[in-house]
């Protein structure tokens, strides 16, 4: 086996996107995945490709990534279940309509196709929502896909471009020159991209002060197949508010229609949980919230529930860039609940960094140096 130019550790959607971009540039890429492609956080994700504007940096990365996904969408095979359903941010109360109008103006100024829905417009767009909601913001370009299939497709494209993937290979340690595997053997490479998700920081040669994230646990439930109940991804604006509370457990209404006629129901957020056990009381709170918004869900059967752990940074931005003090070692993790969306942008940024050229967006807000504690 000849030595790879780049070793990508982690075959989740972020690692897959990095591998594809690097392979397309002609690097010899090898992906090491401890299970199988997309088996970790990717498999537990909802699969939204959305634009968010919690911060300018978040907006730039999500918007750019969404454009990259949209350009790919027609190429993606049926099993990726791409659904250009759009997303509606729901204002429960009139007071939230200011947010709707502000965001609409902002997004329009960036050329994004959005629509402000009043109470009636919302009811027409989504008849199964409870009556008397204030309105909503329809994001026409948002889409939904099936994340593990998307990751598999990206890996397959990377392989077509000359990359190799080794599954069932667990990595213990990474450096700028390669990786040490669990069996003690090493794999040398020109450079290493650590895209190991919630495990990524544990693999670094040593802890880097200031560089941290907290696992954020989320519950999801999916219904049996049935007649289509909703036509957009739906989320309450309060979802964004709950995203900012780092401390406590919160639930928010967020559902997605699936092409199977199933409804995927979220969401819950719990910080610093390391176990993936489904917690009945949290699950129930989340489902009650969903039923409050779509009463007809009450009768639909829930067939499966699961949880996922998302790597959440303090400033809610991913960690993308060279690891200080370790030439040749790059980190691509910390995407929290936006990893499916931002995977493609991350892949581009990493490829640009490895090539030493500038990117379509400024990479500074995602670089690791922002987190580092000032040296005494």
């Amino acid at each position, binding site marked *: 086996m000849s030595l790879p130019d780049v070793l990508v550790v982690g075959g989740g959607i972020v690692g897959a996107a990095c591998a594809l971009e690097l392979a397309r540039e002609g690097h010899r890429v090898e992906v090491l995945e401890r*299970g*199988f492609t*997309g*088996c970790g956080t990717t*498999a537990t994700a909802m699969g939204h490709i959305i634009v968010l504007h919690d911060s300018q940096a978040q907006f730039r990365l999500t918007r750019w990534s969404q454009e990259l996904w949209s350009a790919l969408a027609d190429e993606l095979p049926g099993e990726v279940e791409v659904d250009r359903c759009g997303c509606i941010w729901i204002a429960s109360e009139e007071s939230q309509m200011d947010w709707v109008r502000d965001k609409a103006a902002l997004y329009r100024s960036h050329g994004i196709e959005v629509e402000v829905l009043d109470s009636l417009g919302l009811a027409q767009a989504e008849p199964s929502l409870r009556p008397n909601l204030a309105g909503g913001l329809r994001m026409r370009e948002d889409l939904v896909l099936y994340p*593990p*299939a998307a990751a*598999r497709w990206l890996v397959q494209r990377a392989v077509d471009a000359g990359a190799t993937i080794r*599954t*069932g290979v667990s990595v213990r340690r990474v450096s700028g020159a390669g990786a040490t595997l669990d069996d003690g053997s090493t794999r040398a490479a020109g450079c290493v991209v650590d895209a190991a998700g919630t495990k990524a920081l544990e693999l670094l040669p040593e802890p880097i002060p200031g560089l941290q994230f907290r696992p954020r646990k989320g519950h999801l*439930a999916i*219904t*049996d*197949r049935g007649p289509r109940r909703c036509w957009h991804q739906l989320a309450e604006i309060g979802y964004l508010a709950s995203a900012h509370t780092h401390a406590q457990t919160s639930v928010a209404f967020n559902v997605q229609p699936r092409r199977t006629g199933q409804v995927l*129901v979220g969401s819950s957020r719990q910080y610093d949980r390391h176990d993936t056990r*489904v*917690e*009945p*009381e949290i*699950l*129930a*709170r989340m*489902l*009650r919230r*969903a*039923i409050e918004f779509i009463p007809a*869900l*009450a*009768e*639909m*059967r*829930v*067939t*499966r*529930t*699961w949880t996922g752990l998302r790597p959440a940074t303090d400033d809610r931005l991913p960690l993308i860039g060279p690891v200080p003090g370790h030439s040749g070692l790059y980190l691509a993790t910390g995407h929290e609940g936006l990893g499916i969306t931002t995977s493609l942008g991350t892949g581009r940024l990493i490829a640009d960094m490895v090539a030493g050229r500038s990117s379509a967006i400024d990479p500074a807000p995602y670089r690791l140096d922002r987190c580092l504690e000032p040296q005494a």
Partner: protein
Amino acid sequence: MREVASEVLILGAGPAGLAAAAAAAEAGARVDVIEGNRSPGGQIWRPEGATEAHPTTRRWQQRLLRTGVRVHLETTVVAADGPRCIYTVCGGEMSRFRTSRLVLATGSRELFLPFPGWTLPGVTGVGGLQALVKSGWPIEGKRVVVAGSGPLLLAVADSLRRRGAKLLLIAEQAPRRAVVRLARQLWRSPRKAIQALGLMARLVQVPMRYACWPLRATGDECVRSVLLQGSDGSIELECDALACGFGLVPEIAIAAYLGCDVECGAMSVDAQQQSSVPGVYGAGEITGVGGVELAVAEGAVAGTAAAGARVPVRWLARRDRQQAFVSHLDRAFALRPELRRLAAPETIVCRCEDVAFEALAGAESARAAKLATRCGMGSCQGRVCGPATRFLFGWHHDRVRPPFFPVPMAALAAIGTVQPSSANPACYQTFTMDC
């Protein structure tokens, strides 16, 4: 959500669950039994029609009645928060049972193996057809082939015959010599010997083949014929129904969820029927498929132990005697490797999601296959394809998570909601109502 306090909570009111309930209650415990069906008795003592209880069940009912056991019928276990907190749904209503001991007597279900045509209407399980017929399914005058493996084949064939079915063939995949070897062990259990002899006598008119198994069922909208592999070539039979089941698999989902050790697909228990999780006991087919006498013997031990009482030595001995028979059964009806090759590339394996055999071959695990093909993602939650893929590919089951059974969202959403406890809710049933 309704709250129920219990001392010994028993999941399942089949032979093992009923025996456990009686023993636990007679040892002084406050006992609740959860049963998904409309009446107790499990699959083996399933009543004819919906109204009358099976005569054996009625005797148990009388015994339970004296000790105040509460039986919650048409109640499904959907979630748990550790072994002391069990969530159930009945008629859409969520209940939380708090208990100090738990006895799992969840029984078993049939093993179905995919072969071309097995998804056609008219192809059912063996126990499946039995259950359907007991609930009024028309079978009189129908030409039936009973195929697969295990003692259930003869018992069901006899019951179909009594109802006027025209039995064309009983096809047992095990070789005759293996079954004969098993029969030689029957002297140890006179009751089983008498049952077996009676069955053979009543079925003397029915053609029976050993080392014979179905290769393909054909029909357009319903099965019309079945092709079987016999020791002397294949045979094709025109039929109206094909009952096919390859034995029973323990229903271990809840045990696995609670973290109980599972070995070879069955829950591991010690001499007191206690699992690796303290306070969780197992009785009946969940610990290994061994028939009704063993289930009752295990239930009595488990119930007594769960109630904190000393188990009489002769009960342990009775259980151990029955237990000895299990390994003989397993050996006699071991599935032949040819059965792994019945499915054609296009044969459906996961019926809920229509996943074909060829889509699964090469996947590294049940979970990988599920994420890549949707195998096991449907309504049955992998109850049908799970044991099949375990046999076909050696896959271990994916992790169990709530809900253990598909339930309306409203019911799950009620977990943790406070509601004044009602003294006599609609689904709360004791035997006083039936007897």
